[in-house]
């Protein structure tokens, strides 16, 4: 790799031990992926924030980087933590866990990382523009940023995203290069897509087909008209979870789709395939489920407004977590949504989510509208899962199977 004078100085340790370690990580990745040089990044999003995933070793590494003088050089935010940082007691988090989680957040803060813990940074002040080079780690956010916003990010891991933050650089390979952003397979969708869980099911079907195709990673999706932000958020999360996808193009929806012809290699997706994908993500019953959650990825304010509308004057009969970014929650506070939600007995869980919180063993079955949440609930936490449309998830929480 060709490094400029400043990058060489970082590698030689002239800007501190943490910066040196960060540059070592980036040079090694650049070497593996044949990058010619580094590209400056203007935005970073770091994963590996929940103490449940980091453990003591991860905390020790972060502490070492912080004590080694590491400071973020560009706008950097965090992935969800293992708890609501301000209201963890209400969620039944153990004090020992809270103590460790707080140490993680504090270490990041001392490195000048903005401790907004969310998988939707693009909703709360970390919003890259078209063509901007960034280094993000949360898989759903990487997919959204590349596809919907047209920014350029590889799928970073926790340490490599931190390395980008501390140096303001990332090796130029993969998604940073125009020639690697071409679609390779067309998916012709012939199905009704209305609800978040429809888009989640579509992401699972496309993601799993991509996994089975050698060397084909970027889909061109046709037949979806007028997807809104929440639907694209849901699709991005699902196709990234099931397919490892960093970028998709969607005809007449995403900004780079018009730059390309749909690839000749084409696969049809039918309604029946979506139906069976949904069935695969449902192995429990609403009646016996003991956990309900919306907000994977984190809810938009529009989604929270809808939950408040549905919960008005009702009482929940199951543990119901509403997960979102702290700034979004603060708007909900101002609008009175929080009051309505909490009066029903439902709980806001800001800064965290049901994927990264330490809830293994606490529940047996989750009702959600998120295909991604189903994947992690059944794998990591060994819950049964029930996938439902958004409104019906709320109805499940208040003990009503369907809308009346």
């Amino acid at each position, binding site marked *: 790799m060709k490094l400029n004078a400043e990058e060489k100085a970082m590698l030689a340790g002239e800007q501190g031990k943490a910066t040196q370690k960060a540059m070592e990580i980036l040079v090694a*990745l650049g070497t593996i992926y044949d990058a010619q040089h580094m590209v400056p990044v203007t935005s970073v999003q770091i994963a590996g924030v929940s103490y449940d995933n980091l453990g003591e*070793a991860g905390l020790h*590494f972060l502490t070492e980087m912080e004590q080694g003088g590491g400071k973020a050089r560009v706008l950097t935010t965090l992935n969800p933590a293992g708890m609501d940082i301000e209201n963890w007691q209400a969620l039944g988090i153990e004090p020992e866990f809270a103590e460790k989680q707080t140490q993680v957040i504090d270490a990041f803060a001392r490195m000048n990382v903005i401790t907004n813990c969310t998988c939707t940074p693009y909703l709360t002040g970390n919003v890259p523009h078209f063509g901007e080079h960034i280094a993000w780690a949360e898989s759903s956010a990487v997919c959204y940023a590349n596809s919907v916003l047209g920014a350029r990010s590889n799928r970073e891991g*926790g340490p490599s995203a931190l390395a980008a933050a501390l140096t303001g650089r990332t090796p130029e390979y993969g998604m940073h290069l125009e020639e690697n952003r071409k679609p390779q397979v067309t998916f012709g969708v012939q199905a009704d897509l209305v609800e978040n869980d429809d888009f989640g099911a579509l992401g699972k079907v496309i993601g799993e087909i991509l996994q089975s195709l050698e060397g084909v990673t970027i889909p061109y999706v046709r037949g979806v008209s007028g997807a809104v932000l929440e639907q694209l958020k849901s699709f991005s999360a699902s196709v990234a979870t099931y397919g490892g996808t960093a970028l998709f193009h969607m005809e007449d929806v995403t900004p780079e789709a018009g730059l390309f012809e749909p690839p000749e290699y084409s696969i049809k997706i039918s309604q029946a395939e979506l139906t069976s994908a949904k069935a695969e993500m449902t192995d429990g019953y609403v009646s016996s489920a003991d956990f309900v959650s919306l907000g994977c990825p984190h809810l938009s304010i529009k989604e929270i407004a809808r939950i408040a509308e549905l919960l008005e004057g009702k009482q929940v009969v199951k543990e119901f977590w509403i997960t979102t970014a702290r700034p979004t929650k603060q708007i909900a506070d101002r609008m009175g949504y929080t009051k309505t939600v909490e009066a029903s007995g439902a709980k806001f869980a800001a800064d965290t989510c049901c994927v990264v919180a330490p809830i293994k063993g606490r529940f047996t079955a989750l009702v959600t509208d998120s295909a991604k949440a189903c994947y992690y609930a059944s794998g990591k936490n060994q819950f049964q899962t029930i996938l439902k449309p958004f409104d019906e998830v709320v109805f499940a929480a208040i003990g009503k199977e369907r809308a009346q």
Partner: protein
Amino acid sequence: MNWQGRKIFTGQASGEALVSSMGISFFGGVDPESGEVIERDHELEGQSIAGKVLVFPTGKGSTVGSYTLYRLKRAGKAPAAIINAECETITAVGCIIAEIPCVDQVPISQLRSGQRLKVDGEQGTVAISGE
């Protein structure tokens, strides 16, 4: 015998080779306190990677695996060095943060468990010692 590979992380180490023809997922696949391979049906299941020159084709699984290598190092159970056919992000980042010498692009099918290997991360070389 010796081979010229590619430097992933610097440092020199010698040790007994532990060779796997299967990929390794450090997160969930290796016990971070004991160094024992715990992935079910893995060909190294039940064996310890501690102090070994660990040879495998490539890493797989969660990116949290980088932290597992770091945790092994802190527990004194890390491999002495790692040799891959093709290194990927998880193993590379893990070796850097845990400071484990690592070399790739070596014909690993020529290596056998029990051989004494000398790895030079700086030069990117692997040699069978005592020859």
